């Protein structure tokens, strides 16, 4: 490797570190600047959400699903609600389904802003992160109008949604989506995505082939960045996603090899545009009035049985394995998240990369600590 003799050094990165996305610790064995191995040590945000589920009624668990991935909380709410509805055979009214889709796609946009914003901050570019936060503030305003909260929304209920969209929401949402698709993304790409320094930092770094990605159960944008064409919204549709017309962006080796960090970053940028298309179509097709929630019996019990339902969250596949014994509380809830599998692959692709590239790889895989630890 080099003509200089050196010794291996063990370096600790985290849990309190500005570049790890939350409280994650890495134990790095490095030979100078080159890494030999990076072992993750997780569990610093393990709050026992799966055990809490066994002590609360079915509907009362919804705010805790917000905290499983707080950056995209409506998607997690939706995953849990769809799982319980499939187990209990509950139908959701039309207007509620469209409101759910609009809220979920807005949440996906907001999450991708934090996703690639944090990646750029880790690479050292502070200004693009502030650009992303500025757009996220407008998204926060919209969500506050719809759900009442800025961050942990708790909007979806079992059988529908919590409240109806107020007057003026549709116009404001449409103007936000138009601003994003036609003004912001183009400007952002010209300034940042096609910047030579960013391309040099991300291209050919952390290449993951589609076969490796499948072996390590990667999902979502991470899997699509390696070239696989699989999106749960199109291939295993839930809610009313089968009525919308949208493309599924995948990695093509745009500026480097197929499956490198730039591909994963580019897939997220493209997904923002596709989410804008879905929102516009949903606002047009939504019924003008109607029920927003199915009345559930009191006390609400779910018939005994087991189900596994997976939905497309911004960080991968969010799966809920529910076991019910016919009672008022869940018997077992297992939450399977996309960031958990993304962490397992870091150990395997970190040999022979430099420490700065490790930061780029973690950022491009878009891991957040609460999804890993729950």
């Amino acid at each position: 490797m080099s003509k200089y003799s050196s010794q291996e050094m063990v370096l600790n990165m985290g849990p309190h570190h500005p570049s790890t996305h939350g409280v994650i610790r890495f134990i790095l064995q490095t030979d100078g600047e080159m890494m030999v191995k990076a072992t993750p040590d997780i569990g610093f945000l393990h709050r026992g959400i799966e055990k809490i589920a066994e002590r609360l009624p079915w509907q009362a668990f919804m705010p805790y699903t917000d905290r499983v991935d707080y950056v995209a909380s409506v998607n997690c709410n939706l995953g849990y609600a769809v799982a319980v509805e499939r187990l209990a055979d509950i139908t959701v009214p039309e207007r509620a389904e469209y409101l759910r889709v609009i809220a979920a796609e807005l949440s996906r946009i907001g999450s991708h802003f934090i996703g690639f914003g944090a990646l750029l901050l880790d690479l050292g570019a502070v200004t693009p992160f502030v650009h992303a936060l500025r757009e996220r503030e407008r998204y926060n305003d919209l969500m506050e109008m719809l759900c009442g909260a800025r961050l942990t929304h708790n909007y979806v209920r079992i059988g529908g949604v919590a409240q109806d969209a107020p007057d003026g929401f549709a116009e404001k949402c449409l103007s936000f989506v138009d601003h994003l698709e036609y003004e912001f993304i183009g400007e952002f790409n010209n300034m940042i995505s096609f910047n030579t320094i960013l391309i040099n930092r991300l291209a050919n770094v952390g290449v993951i082939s589609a076969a490796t990605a499948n072996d390590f159960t990667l999902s979502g944008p991470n899997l699509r960045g390696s070239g696989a064409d699989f999106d749960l919204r199109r291939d295993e549709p839930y809610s009313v996603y089968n009525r919308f017309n949208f493309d599924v962006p995948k990695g093509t080796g745009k500026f480097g090899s197929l499956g490198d960090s730039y591909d994963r970053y580019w897939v997220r940028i493209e997904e923002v545009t596709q989410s804008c298309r879905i929102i516009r179509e949903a606002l047009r097709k939504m019924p003008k009035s109607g029920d927003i929630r199915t009345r559930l019996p009191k006390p609400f019990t779910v018939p005994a049985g087991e189900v596994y339902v997976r939905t497309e969250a911004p960080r991968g596949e969010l799966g809920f394995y529910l076991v019910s014994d016919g009672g008022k509380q869940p018997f077992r809830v297992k939450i399977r998240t996309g960031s958990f599998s993304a962490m397992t692959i870091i150990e395997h692709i970190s040999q022979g990369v430099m420490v700065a590239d490790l930061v780029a790889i973690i950022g491009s895989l878009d891991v957040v600590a609460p999804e890993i630890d729950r």
Partner: protein
Amino acid sequence: MLDRFNIVNRLSPDRDLILTTVDTAVNLARANSLWYLLMGLACCSIELMQTGGPRADIDRFGSLFRATPRQSDLMIVAGTVTLKMAPRLRRLYDQMAEPKYVIAMGSCANCGGPFDLSYSVVRGIDKIIPVDVYLPGCPPRPEALTEALIKVQEKIKKERFFLKQEASQQRKTEQEKRGKDGSGIPFQGSSRY
């Protein structure tokens, strides 16, 4: 103007000479440049980032985020502290230089919050470190965090800086009364706060 800065006397309206006490001048400088340690652990950290972002800009109060405890004098604990993370939190607090202040941001840092039903969560960071301002909310809005920062600033402006010996003695006796162990090992447990 006189009230805002506690100015004692201005000799005449057209001269640039202001009389004040040393305490007031030093406290003014200290309060308006509080650098905070980024202790963003969970959901409240996103609101902490948004508070430092473009709309609710905390930088206009002179506050800047630092990643290292050696360069910061305010610690904003944003998020749930688990039993695995608690010794690290204590170690980071001990590494900060005096005078240091702590804001407990959010329900989880105040008292465990919604994770009171859990087995691996520390119910409130005041079991580990002394807290100056408790900020409720889940998560608190950026305006609320700004208000908490202003409260810390008001607290600083009332301090008497040059009687440093007396101030740190006072803090020590207060800690002992509250049953806290100031030595650097994890909190030994007490039934009183």
